[in-house]
Every structure is written in structure tokens, then in C-alpha cells.
């Protein structure tokens, strides 16, 4: 009983910690060169955050890839805010905007363990701004590694071909998938003539990214036998 009392007292104290920062406009905060060399640094161009995005660990990169593959996610911003909690500076890992849901701020931590003196004030601070604050474990992300790596590959293809117009091809692919109740990648992409079927390939991945088409990507890496179906 006494432990509970003490815990609730600490929590109360934690709620009183002053947090400075602006959470109205989530913008990626670029890190300094020294910090870049000190972390497991990754950078790449994404689609739902259509700029050069920076990630400070492999788990963060994979999580961003999973957000790309989630059709309910409208957009996300890595390192969205720079907050000052007491004397400590803090940048959350990712800000997520989903369809018909409250905004989320996600922090990725090993084993999902975060310092309570940080977590509690952050939770209340974001609650005040009608944002959900969640701590996810790196392990949970790593468990979906195959799926995330498949999405990284797909995103790379789509970023590479971002200036290509494929409206007509998207219609063609959709019709073919609808008519045949699903197709393998081999049926859409001609392995002997990749150049000729490149537009169809991009169209298929665009439909997949938009959530109009689904595919099993969590078990095996993307290959010619991967089946695509209408959502």
C-alpha cells in the first residue's frame, strides 16, 4: 500500500514538470553532424513524409517502413518536435497522423522501457494537446522485419519512379486483379522484359501503397510468386 502511495506521489510530481516546446506544427528536426556520427544513422526519401527523412536507429527506419505500408496512416514525421523537459532536451521519434483517429506521438525504446520521469510528463503534456503518446518496443518492430524490409524495397521503387505517370496502367492492373481474383507478380511483371512492363510494375506498387491492393509480405521477401489481390 505504501509503495502505491509513493508511486502516485512521484507521478504527481512528474506531472508538474515544465515542458517547453511547440507541438502545433510537426517538422523534422535535423540533427547536428556530431550527433549524426554518434548514432546508428539512416537517411532516405520516403513517400508519406516526402522529404529526406532521418532515423537514429534501424528500428526507427523499419517502423517508418511499416507506417508506409499501413493504409490508415495519412502521413508521419520523424523527429517532429524539440521539447525541453525541465533541463533535458527531448525529440520524440515519430508523429503519426491516421485516418479518423487522434494524432499519435511514438517513442521507440529497447523493451519498451522509458524513464518514468520523462514518460509521465510527456503523456500528460501531449494529452493536453489532444495527442496520444505511446512507447513501443524495438523488439516488436524487429519481429516484423521481413514485412518492413519488403516495404523499404517497394518505397525505393516508388521514390525512384515518382515522376512517372501511371494512371492508365493502374486502371489496367486493377481490372486484371479484379477479373482474375488476384495475380502473382510474375503475371504482371515480365522477367524477360522488365523495361517493357516497368510502368505496370510501378502501377501495381502504387495501388499496394494506396491500400487498394493487398499482398502477403510479412513472411517472405517480395518475389515473382507473391500474390496480389484487390483489397
Amino acid at each position: 500500500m505504501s509503495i502505491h502511495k509513493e508511486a502516485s506521489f512521484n507521478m504527481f510530481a512528474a506531472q508538474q514538470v515544465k515542458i517547453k516546446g511547440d507541438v502545433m506544427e510537426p517538422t523534422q528536426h535535423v540533427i547536428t553532424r556530431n550527433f549524426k556520427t554518434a548514432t546508428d544513422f539512416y537517411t532516405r526519401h520516403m513517400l508519406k513524409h516526402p522529404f529526406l527523412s532521418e532515423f537514429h536507429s534501424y528500428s526507427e527506419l523499419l517502423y517508418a517502413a511499416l507506417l508506409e505500408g499501413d493504409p490508415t496512416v495519412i502521413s508521419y514525421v520523424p523527429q517532429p518536435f524539440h521539447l525541453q523537459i525541465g533541463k533535458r532536451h527531448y525529440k520524440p521519434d515519430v508523429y503519426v497522423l491516421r485516418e479518423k483517429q487522434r494524432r499519435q506521438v511514438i517513442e521507440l525504446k529497447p523493451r519498451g522501457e522509458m524513464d518514468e520521469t520523462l514518460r509521465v510528463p510527456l503523456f500528460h503534456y501531449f494529452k493536453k494537446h489532444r495527442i496520444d503518446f505511446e512507447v513501443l518496443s524495438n523488439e516488436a518492430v524487429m519481429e516484423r522485419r521481413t514485412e518492413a524490409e519488403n516495404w523499404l524495397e517497394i518505397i525505393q521503387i516508388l521514390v525512384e519512379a515518382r515522376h512517372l505517370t501511371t494512371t492508365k496502367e493502374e486502371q489496367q492492373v486493377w481490372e486484371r486483379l479484379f477479373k482474375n481474383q488476384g495475380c502473382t507478380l510474375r503475371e504482371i511483371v515480365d522477367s524477360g522484359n522488365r523495361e517493357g512492363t516497368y510502368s505496370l510494375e510501378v502501377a501495381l506498387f502504387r495501388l499496394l501503397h494506396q491500400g487498394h491492393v493487398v499482398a502477403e509480405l510479412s513472411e517472405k521477401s517480395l518475389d515473382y510468386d507473391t500474390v496480389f489481390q484487390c483489397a
Partner: protein
Amino acid sequence: MRISWRQQLLLNPHLCDFDQWPLIALDQVPKKDQKDFLRNKKIVAKVLAGHQLTQVAKEHNLSEGRITQILDRALGSEEDAPPALTAGLIPGRIIVKKQRKQPLPTLTEELGAGCAFSALLRDVPGLLKGLDDVLVPYIAEKNYAQNISPQSFHSEFKRLLKEAHWPTDTYPYTTENTAYESVRRYLHERMKILVKEKDQTKRNQTSRVPRPLKKTFRAKRAVQIDEHKLDLGSRINLVLNDELIPLRIGMISVLVAMDVDTTATLGFWLAQTNAPNQQDLLALIENCITPWTPMTLQTPGFSYEPGACFPSALPDTPISFGMTRMDNAWIHSALSVTHILCNKMGGTVALGLPANPKIRHLIESVFNFINKNFSHRLPSTTGSYPTDPKRESRINRKKPPVITFRTVLEALSIILTSYNIITRAQLGHASPLSLFQHHCTNHYVRYSPSIITNQWQPFINEKIVALCWYRHENRAPFVNFAGTRYSGPGLWDAVENQKLIRIRFDRRRIRTIDAYTLDGVSLGKLYAPASWQRFEHSRATRKLLLKLTRKDRLSRQDPLSDYLHLLLENKDNPKDALSLLRIFTEFTDYQDSALIMDGVLNEQQSISNHSTTTRWNRKMANHRE
């Protein structure tokens, strides 16, 4: 409580099988003890096989009591400790940690100092903890920690004894040097343990999420890139005033890119410097994505192995980079590098954790391959470290090496392409190149069509700049770029209604740049000032020369010629000779003639022609060629 050998066998019946005991080879035992060790083994094996003790004792001409002693030594143990087993059969081997049972010696009663120090640590209250309190902050590198030496540690030891009010007539005060030697030995042993513990804790704290075994093996999935300074001296031949001068050049660097899953080398770039810059890295990327064609080999005896090539030479397999793993050198995080790898190819740049080269072990293994097969085999090698016996001898060091820059280039081309056709056990006895081809034909591998790859020009950059025009000075409009003003006739068309324009430039050739309005209408070529028109040069060279000009080491009228002259004056210095080669290659616009400085030479191609027309005709400096 101690367990006898009979009780041990009842508790652990599996010990009855002598074959299950740990094996100690006879040659690991001191020669003088080998005979007795073998006898003890025979005795234990017989007893475990069910022979009677009396009979065994008789066979070996020993008493029954001695047989029991031998068995107890091997099988007997304390309750909470495992038995010594085979180790207990080695005569004289210490199997029980010695402890002092007698009281510590005093001035009146000298009992010997055997195991007295460990007894002291055990008996004196707070001594063990006090000594650890001295050592732990020192190992943790705390700012308040004392620097520990055996002497200072011994002083701390004496202080702790005094604080514990240890009687001054008892050990260690009975010895001449107050147990100094024991304290010294304890210090070293304890330090080892504490350092190991610290490393272990550090490792546990820094350990990342254990990544599951990699399932995806696919060509072009990940690439590793790194630079390596070749452990080799080479030379260039300089023709000056019709005289052939061989010059030793400094150590050159090789940049290699490698596909991780197939272990195929994608390409290389030989940087004529020991500190490559972002332009060298871009050159490597360009080499990897451009279809490879074999070099025209000029060195006698050199030839490519049949079928050896880089993957870019394979038909219908354009190379693109997925996850590019590099170390966190500053050239790797250059904007021009991220622009080509991330914005144009859509890939990921991974700079990795600091001081973790093992993450990129593959690329390091390629450098080892180069060293073993090439650079360490030549007499002009510098070896891997200053005292390497392979290092070039002092006599040879006075002369330029036999091997030329051109030969190094050709040799690397041959070695790295042949690396791709060596079959490897870890690839299922396939060669990297055949595996790469197999992946591209049989699996879904990212493909980039020519419409996209044509846009990948690593050296071509674009920038939006302000269009300036000081009307009141009656001067032509200009833009600022690379530390100078560029102007051209096309700017007059835009000067009335454009404040910003787009420029397009090649990093290797910035004498002229192309200008466009923001709508994409061409404004023609813009020219650098006349002082920068003498030779073709890169952006990196411009930056260096501007720096030297600011320090007044070069004239502002013709910095390019002045720099060439400066290098020619100091040509005997290997570093300057290397810079000379690099600059000359740039000034001759990367044509093959740039390499005439080594290999076969003719007068028309020689640097002397350039130097006579440029260096000694200063009047030309202010005029466009």
C-alpha cells in the same frame, strides 16, 4: 561437508563411466608426471570397472590407502563444488584453493607467511571493500579517482590497516616490506577482474536488439562502400624539358563498392590522394552504375581472366544501390552523396555506429584480398604497420619504385574483376558474379529502366542562385558560384524580370556552367572570370586554390598555373608529386593523356608541353584560351 569418492559415485552414477570423464592429453602434462598420471588413470579406470581395491593395489604395488587417496582426489569434493575428475589424477596439480588455517604470524610467533595475505583480506574488516573503493573509480575513469600504481596502492593498503586498528605486531608488519609484493600481485589480479567486469557491463548496456537471422538474400539489396589507403608506393614519369624524370608519389587510395548478399565487387575508383573527398566517392558511384568495359592494358604480361567483369557489364542489369552502408566519415554524409543515393536512386544511406567496422566486414575483406594479392607482394610496400617486416627496405626507399601509377590501376582492375569469379563455399560453391546473375534472372530484383538511369549523373548538380546586376556601375549581370562571379550574354535576357535563376554544373568542370530560368528556358553558358579559364578544373580544386589565394600563396591573376608551378617546384616531395598527378589529370580534362605521366610517353603528350605554354607565359594568364 566433504563428499567421499564412494558417495560421489552414488550421487552421480554417470561418473562410473570413465569414458565420460574430461580428456586431458598426455602431452599437456609435465613430462616428469606423465608416468604417474597414466598409472593413476589405469587405477581409476579399473576401480570404476568393478575391480577390487585390494587387487588393484597389488597390481600397482601400492597400499589400499593410497588407492583411496587417488580416488578421493579425483572424485571427492565439497558439497557445493564439482569433483576435479581427470585433473585430479595429475600428480602435484592444485585442485583445492589453498586457505590459511593457522593464525597469522606475529613478532613473537613466526608461523610462515603462506596464504597470509588472502587470510588478511578475509579477516581485516573493510579491507577488501576499501581496496575495491580505490580501484573501481580508477577503472571507471572518474574525475576524482586516484591514479593507481603498485606503490600508491600499497600506501592505501597500509592506510586501511591503520584505520582498522590492525595490531602492529601481526602480519604484514612482521615482513620487511609490509607485504608489498603480495599487494602488487593482488593489484594486477584484481584489476584484470574489474576491467573484465566493466567491459561486460558496458557490453550489456550497449547491446542492441538481437537481430533475427537475415532471411532475405537478394542482389542489389545492400551495398558496402569504403576507402582504403594502398600500402604501396608507386611512381609517375614526368617529362620536363625533354628529360624523363621518375618521381615517387605518395600513397594513393582505392574506393570499392560491394554488393553484400552476393559479395560481388560493383566497381572501384583509384583516388590520386590519401584523403579522398566527396568527388572521389561520386566517381566511384558513377563507375558502378556505368556499364563496365575492360581497360586497354598496357603493362606487359597483364590480362583479364576469362569471364571476369563487374556486374554492370552484365546485359540488362542496371546497377542501383539499396541500403548503402558506409562508415561515418564526413565525405559519406556529403549532400551530393545523399542526393544521388537517396533522392535519385531512392535508396538508404546507413552511416552506422562509430568504431564498428565489423558491421562492414565484407568490404574490409576485399581490402585484405587486395593487400594479399597485390600491394603486399611488391617490394615498394609500406606494410600494414611501421614495423612490418614486409616494409620497403631503406636502400630501395631512396629511389622511386619500379611500379607505375598506370600499372597499379590496371592491376586493381584485374584483381577486383577476378574476385568476382572466384567460387566461394558460403555462396554454395557459386561465384559472386554468377550468383548476381542468378538473382537477377530468377528472383524479383529491383530494376531501373533507362529513362530513370539516364538521370543518374552523380557529377551533375543544380542550384538556384540570385541574379545580380549593379546597374549603376555599368557592369554585366552575374551570378555568384563557387567563390567567383559567372556571367554570360544570356543573362541580359533575364535580368529585367528574373531575380532567381537555375544553374546546372558538372562538379569536375566548372569553367563554364549552364543557366536556365526557373521555367526551364535556357540562358546559355555562363563563364568564370578569365583568371579561372586557363585549365579545366573541379569544384574541389577551386575551393583549395581559393583557400591558398587567400593565404597569398598563389597569385589572384592565374591561380591555376601558379599552383601547377608550385607543385612542379616541389615535385620531389611524394605528396606534391601525387597532387601534381591529380591536378594534371583534372587540367587535361580526364583524358587518357593525363596518364602519360607514367607508362609509355611521347613528347607531344608530355607535361612539359603544358608547362612551357602555361607556366612561362604569364601574359596569357588574364586571357581566355
